[in-house]
């Protein structure tokens, strides 16, 4: 029993350690993005504390940006609620996807905590690990990335344009670098995924310019493309193995 306990704690520690390590580049990217978000918050008339609170509770870039715009425009609470639903609906899909990757024996509380941690990036690195979700890995990453996001917003409200633009520009691609690190290695192993990634790039590019769809918000376009392309991929290339047991 004692040996069993030690091996369990070794796994937890490794998961947590890996999470802290992978949370660092995410945190750096978050600092840059949330810094510019903080500038938007200041322009909307929020105090540094309000910007910090919004980021600490919401953890969503596009959603928060929309929220600050709405606050500045003195929108109704109902409008704010609707925009939230639209801007953040993609997390519903991610949550669905994660629900299928939890170990059946995993306690329910982890699902409540992980739910709070679902951002594009943390979802990406969580799902990129083979096998069942290791909650401690995600907690480790969130422990670094979460505070960076909130503090970056706070600094953005206070310091405005102090950070050199060139540095902000360089840091702002950190997030996309992480997305690439998640989608490219499986593309190398699996031609279907490689093809789908290319279709996504093309579809996403076109949707920015095609009539009607280009007038939608970024969040809405992401949902439409995700649902449409994933449905088509599932129809054309059904996956044979049990997702939870994939390794």
């Amino acid at each position, binding site marked *: 029993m004692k040996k069993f306990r030690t091996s369990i704690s070794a796994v937890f520690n490794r998961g947590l350690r890996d999470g802290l390590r992978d949370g660092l580049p995410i945190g750096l990217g978050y600092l840059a993005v949330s810094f510019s978000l903080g500038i938007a918050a200041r322009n909307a008339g929020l105090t540094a504390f309000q910007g910090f609170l919004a980021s600490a509770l919401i953890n969503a870039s596009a959603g928060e940006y929309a929220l600050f715009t709405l*606050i500045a425009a003195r929108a109704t609470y109902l409008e704010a609620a609707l925009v939230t639903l639209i801007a953040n609906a*993609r997390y519903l899909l991610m949550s669905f996807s994660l629900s299928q990757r939890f170990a059946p024996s995993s306690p329910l509380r982890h699902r409540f905590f992980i739910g709070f941690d679902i951002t594009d990036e943390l979802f990406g690195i969580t799902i990129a690990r083979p096998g069942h979700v290791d909650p401690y890995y995600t907690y480790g990453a969130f422990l670094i990335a979460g505070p960076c996001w909130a503090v970056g917003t706070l600094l953005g409200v206070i310091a405005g344009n102090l950070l050199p633009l*060139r540095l902000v520009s360089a840091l*702002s*691609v950190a997030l996309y*670098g992480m997305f690439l690190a998640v989608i490219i290695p499986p593309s190398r192993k699996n031609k279907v995924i490689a093809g789908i990634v290319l279709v996504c790039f093309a579809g996403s590019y076109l949707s920015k310019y095609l009539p009607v769809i280009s007038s939608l918000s970024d969040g809405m376009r992401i949902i439409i493309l*995700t649902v449409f392309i994933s449905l088509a991929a599932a129809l054309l290339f059904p*996956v044979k193995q049990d997702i939870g047991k994939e390794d």
Partner: protein
Amino acid sequence: MGHNVYIYIMIMAVITYAIRTLPLTLIRKPIKNQFFQSFLYYVPYVTLAVMTFPAIIDATQTPVAGAAALIVGIIVAWRGTGLFQVSASCCAVVFFIELFF
């Protein structure tokens, strides 16, 4: 109707948390349907790919830097290096290109 900033923040925080947590907590059994399983299998790749391009090109001061970051990021990730290295290479490329443009 008031315009209290804290109420706006609370509305968004509650709705966002519900969106993130409801599927996770309500669906605790594996879904057996192969079509739906396949759909969920592809969702992460599709959504991350859609968010990466062309957004990476719009994120930088000059589009050339963003495009270079995309290419370098793909090459470095293709070679199987970790998250941090891929991310750092993208940032470095943008930094150096924008020094000269």
